[in-house]
């Protein structure tokens, strides 16, 4: 690393990027080898040694105490105290320090705000300020853009540039090629714990991706134009609350037709989660209706919804999608363990479960040591494939995939995307919810943008990213709205409207 350099560390999930950086930050001990700082070997017994050596780290999952204020989080571990051994906190000084650093680097934060009230982008800013107050020369950013909106990502890149200008070195860990190309001075690619190459930012996306994965990957999703059929999922006037009884979905209308992918874009926390949970029967519907192929399904239990032919890839696989301690084979039949051939009466049929597991592990390219391995021991991408394999093994009318490739390596992303498109092509209605705009654009035939619990616009997949970005931020210029109406396929079965309007006009005649 050179001073004032942005060095990107690129690699698939599970390639060893984060582990390497945790060693560098003193959290893990190296088994072999050494770290050199200014030519001298450095022994790190813990994070405090690393901080002492001028190394700071912003972790992928923020290391902030949610109930503390910004100032408290920043001073923790390096408290300014007075009063001798009593160690009273010097809050005023801490606050001043925060303000100073945040002004110097143009990272505005309120020292008295409580972390849990702050949006994710600001929390990340607090993390950066925290590292800067410790006078670090080298800042490690571990997947910093995973949780940010496109606009917040832009801001972060600006911040990184200004830090670089101030002479700080930055290690930028990511698997997103676009960001690397936009900001890095030097790129090191890691695969399976080994450095497989260095590249300059001028290298093409395809070259970088090939280095990461070890083979050529397609970055765009290949698909033919959709041939939408009958409406499968119809949501009208849906109102749903979140866990805190605050309105999360506020009057959503949408339709997903057979053989098309409806992408739902939006910054996280704008009601997408609650929308799909309501459809799945996981969350009470306060108003409005949900229909599946003409049947009202609101108020149904999740099991009934699943049995009616709905596949569900939940957004957080470790919480909702899998039982981590269960084996791969068991996780593959979680939805139908009580049905033949896997279950009969009170008993399970282990042979049938094992046989089907073997088949599906092969079919879906799940990399696992055996079907009996606990699913929690698999990499993120392979865990996700287990879920996809389970959900796509039933005959489906509707597939709901939420963040289907979050925290998943490039190779698996490609595979999962192709499975989703395949499902569309055999006539399933598909709804993909993702905060990854590229993913939505790549997969969707129509894109619905959610903002504050409403669908703020529905646009075609060839709409410019900037326009969708504006919609995600809640700005819907008239121009965009006009475009929406054009983009919605107006060629649906118009006959449906005909008979319905007839009695209406008849009664008018009578009146």
């Amino acid at each position, binding site marked *: 690393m050179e001073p004032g350099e942005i060095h990107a560390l690129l690699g698939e999930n599970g390639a060893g990027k984060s582990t390497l950086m945790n060693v560098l930050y003193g959290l893990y001990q190296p088994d072999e080898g050494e770290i050199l700082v200014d030519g001298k070997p450095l022994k790190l017994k813990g*994070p405090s040694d690393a*901080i002492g050596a001028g190394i700071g780290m912003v972790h992928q999952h923020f*290391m*902030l*105490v949610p109930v503390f204020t910004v100032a408290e989080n920043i001073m*923790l*571990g390096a*408290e300014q*105290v007075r009063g001798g051994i009593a160690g009273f906190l010097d809050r005023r000084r801490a606050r001043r320090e925060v303000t100073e650093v945040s002004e110097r680097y143009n990272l505005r934060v309120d020292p008295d705000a409580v972390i849990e009230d702050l949006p994710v982008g600001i929390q990340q800013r607090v993390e950066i300020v925290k590292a800067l107050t410790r006078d670090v020369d080298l800042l490690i950013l571990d997947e910093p853009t995973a949780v940010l909106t496109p606009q917040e990502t832009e801001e972060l890149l600006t911040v990184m540039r200004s830090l670089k200008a101030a002479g700080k070195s930055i290690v930028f860990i990511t698997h997103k090629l676009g960001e690397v190309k936009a900001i890095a001075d030097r790129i090191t690619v890691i695969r399976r714990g080994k450095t497989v190459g260095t590249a300059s930012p001028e290298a093409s996306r395809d070259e970088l991706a090939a280095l990461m994965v070890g083979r050529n990957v397609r970055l765009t999703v290949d698909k033919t134009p959709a041939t939408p059929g009958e409406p499968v999922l119809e949501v009208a006037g849906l109102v749903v609350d979140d866990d805190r009884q605050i309105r999360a979905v506020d009057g959503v209308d949408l339709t997903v037709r057979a053989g098309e992918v409806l992408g739902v874009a939006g910054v996280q926390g704008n009601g997408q989660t609650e929308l799909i949970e309501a459809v799945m029967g996981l969350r009470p519907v306060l108003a409005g209706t949900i229909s599946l192929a003409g049947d009202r399904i609101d108020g149904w239990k999740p099991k009934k919804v699943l049995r009616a032919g709905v596949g569900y890839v939940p957004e957080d696989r470790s919480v909702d999608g899998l039982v981590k301690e269960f084996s791969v084979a068991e996780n593959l039949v979680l939805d139908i363990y009580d049905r033949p051939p896997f279950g009969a009466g009170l008993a399970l049929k282990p042979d049938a479960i094992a046989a089907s597991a073997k088949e599906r592990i092969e079919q879906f390219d799940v990399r696992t040591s055996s079907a009996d391995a606990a699913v929690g021991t698999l990499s993120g991408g392979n865990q996700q494939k287990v879920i996809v394999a389970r959900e796509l093994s039933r005959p489906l009318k509707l597939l709901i995939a939420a963040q289907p490739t979050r925290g998943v390596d490039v190779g698996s992303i490609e595979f999962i995307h192709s499975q989703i498109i395949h499902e569309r092509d055999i006539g399933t209605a598909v709804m993909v919810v993702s905060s990854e705009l590229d993913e939505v654009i790549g997969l969707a035939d129509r894109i619905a943008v959610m903002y504050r619990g409403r669908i703020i616009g529905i646009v075609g997949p060839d709409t410019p990213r900037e326009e969708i970005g504006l919609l995600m931020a809640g700005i819907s210029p008239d121009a965009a709205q006009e475009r929406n109406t054009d983009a919605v396929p107006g060629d649906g079965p118009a006959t449906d409207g005909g008979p319905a309007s007839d009695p209406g006009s008849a009664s008018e005649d009578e009146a």
Partner: protein
Amino acid sequence: MSTMAVPDIAVAPVDEGFWTRSRKVGLTLLALGLLSAVLFGALATDQQARFTLSDDAAGAALEINGTIGAILFGIITIAAGAALLAGVPKRWFLPVLGVGLVAFVLSFLCWQVSAAPAGQNFMPLVNIIRGTFILALPLIFGALAGVLCERSGVVNVAIEGQLLMGAFSGALFGSISGSVWVGLVAAAIGGAFISLLLAVFAIRYLVDQVVMGIVLNLLAVGVTGFLYERLMQTDAAKYNSAPRFSNWEIPLLKDIPVLGPALFRGNIFLYLGLLLVLVIHIGLFRTRWGLRTRSVGEHPIAADTLGVKVLRVRYRNVLLAGVVAGIGGASYTLALYSFTKNMIGGKGFIALAALIFGRWNPTGALLAALFFGFADQLATYLGAINSVIPSQFLAMLPYLATILAVAGLVGRVRAPAADGKPYIKG
């Protein structure tokens, strides 16, 4: 009026929009007020209800006609309930609620005191306050031990065992040495011993902390019970006759009316307990130690990445908790009684309730402990004046109140996020 209130209650849970927590509490308070004004008012007699301010019954007293008092205080409760029902600013919620509840208790007392047998129509406030504090004392120490432990992320169900071991060691070593101070130190070490076991098994060997706590309580009962029978009962003069701390009068403060004789002529444990509440409260929220303790209890990984030694902080706090609880146990054997088998009798668990009721906050825990102590003292008093209310029922009240309070009044109680979760590095 009461018939009108009934449908209101039935409607309450349906419409979430209007029936906020504050309004529901207001409605409950309104009902309580009606109950006290009507029922207590009707049952109270025309005797003067006297609340005496000095040690003897004949001295200065606050007095009020029983019937009038019961109705008057009932009306105050109704007013407080109505205010909450009408909607008050958020910061007024707790004060208004407090006024309403205190008035309800006073209305109840007006009835009870006025209906007492002739010649006993008085309530000695000094005794009541002093008794409240004495009964609350083990709870205060116990709850503080809980605060110290749980704020750093270790669940402390072993408070009962720590109190008991403290009481036992204090009695044993105090008796052998003949010194209260030796007894006090021994009590602290005894409590810390139980804590050490908790710390080693919970932090090092990752044993489930609740299970470990329960086991330690049983261990403490067993060990002290065994030694009590083998040592103390065979030679009580040698092993179970610890000297006691005498009462210390604090100059100036002891002359404050009512509070002076009630609080400032007490023993070292009373002063120490109140001082510890203050020290731990300031320590927790104003010092480096407190910031680190709370960070370890909320988000140990974050603390670790900033160089805070998570396990060391936990060991230290759990041991400190044992010291505090041990001293609390000694407040029995080095001030009030000689040691008897299982003499803590569940107070450690009530301390745990006080901890939760007080929202893991030293001052909150103090108030909760005093609430329990007052209820205890009240039960004793009502027994003494031959109240129509069975004393067992009164003894049950504080726990009933805890359940209701934790569910409704205090709002959602939030424990430290990492409470009970072992920290495994890497």
